């Protein structure tokens, strides 16, 4: 009987670290507000584990052997991975892992028919874990983390419905398989609109980003599952926007909860719409 006591989701554009200093003041203020709020709430929630779900970005497996979900089982998670350092330009960090929670997730999901691949070694982390870590200060605050890195852009990509269903199973594992009273947080990492490596690399689809967060605030999951399709995501940024499927895993795990946005900014040099939301988990 674990309890999901906190749920948030936010963008992880690498520029939030590497290009922050050159950003306009109002952009910086919006970034500080969003990630500062999340960081403070995560610390206040006194979590036993924060489960972070985000795009693997082809960092840990070959294209030909790319799993849908990869769980970091290490006792410590260290990042960023060397090659990503210049591009991220953020501090090095070491986070506490929760191997026993990672194991429970892998086993619990298997019993529920969902394959979560696991690796005991430290994974290669880029912006997916590094940006939330350094902007929300997970390292300084000893927030224990289990990362779940997922496939958002290697065909066949699990779509919004599949990710929501995976989230439902994950919520069931948390509530039924984790130790009684364990305080669990969920962090959906990725999005909003962007097209990394594409023709429209600097494109940010602000209309889409607002539409998507409006839908979350409206709480109509049925409509969201019908309309936030891979095709719709691809229109708003091929291969990047679909990172929002990580948010669907969180949605599936928590079901329909009041949601509010913590902020949004669209600064071209970030090459990504940057926003964050928080769901109310009750007491």
């Amino acid at each position, binding site marked *: 009987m674990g309890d999901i006591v906190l749920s948030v989701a936010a963008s992880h554009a*690498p*520029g939030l*670290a*590497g*290009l922050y200093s*050159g950003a306009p003041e109002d952009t910086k203020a919006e970034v500080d507000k969003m990630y500062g709020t999340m960081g403070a709430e995560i610390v206040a929630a006194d979590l036993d584990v924060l489960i972070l779900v985000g795009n693997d*970005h*082809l*960092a840990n497996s*070959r*294209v*030909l052997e790319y799993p849908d979900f990869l769980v970091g089982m290490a006792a410590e998670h260290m990042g960023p991975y*060397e*090659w990503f350092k*210049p*591009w*991220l*330009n953020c501090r090095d960090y070491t986070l506490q892992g929760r191997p026993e929670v990672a194991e429970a997730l892998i086993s619990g999901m298997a019993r529920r028919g969902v394959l979560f691949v696991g690796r005991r070694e430290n994974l*290669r982390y880029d912006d997916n874990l590094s940006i939330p870590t350094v902007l929300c200060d997970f390292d300084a605050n000893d927030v224990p983390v289990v990362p779940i890195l997922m496939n958002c*852009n*290697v*065909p066949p*990509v699990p779509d919004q419905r599949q990710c929501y269903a995976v989230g439902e199973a994950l919520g069931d594992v948390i509530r039924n398989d984790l130790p009684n009273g364990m305080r669990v947080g969920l962090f959906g990492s990725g999005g909003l609109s962007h*097209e*990394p*490596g*594409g*023709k*429209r*690399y*600097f*494109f940010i689809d602000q209309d889409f980003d607002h539409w998507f967060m409006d839908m979350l605030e409206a709480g109509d999951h049925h409509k969201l599952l019908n309309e936030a399709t*891979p095709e719709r995501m*691809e229109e708003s940024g*091929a*291969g990047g926007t679909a990172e929002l499927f990580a948010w669907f895993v969180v949605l599936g795990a928590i079901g329909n909860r009041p949601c509010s946005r913590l902020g949004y900014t669209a600064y*071209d*040099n970030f*090459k990504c719409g940057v926003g964050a939301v928080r769901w109310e988990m009750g007491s």
Partner: protein
Amino acid sequence: MAFEQIDKTLVTHDLVQDLKWDAELRAQFEADQVSVLDRYPLKPEERTAIDTGDFRKLYDMGLHPYLGGQLARLMYGNAAGPDATRAVNRLIASLTGEERPDDRTTA
């Protein structure tokens, strides 16, 4: 670029991932690109496209754009700021066929 066009079996994917994962190979690539490329069973037009920085051709052959972006950084600069911006602009210029200054940051 439709993500359906990705050819998962393209050998360039392995090249880019090896370069990310192996600092020694990366140093060799920076010193002598040809000798590293010679080790990979690339199709002739795939090899030519890498040699000439023709990303459009690579994408038409099925290169994953995420790895395309990383290949551009491996070739033109990986550090946040002007370095990576130049890499992004050269990639976009190749994909669109448009001239593009190295420091441009808007669509």
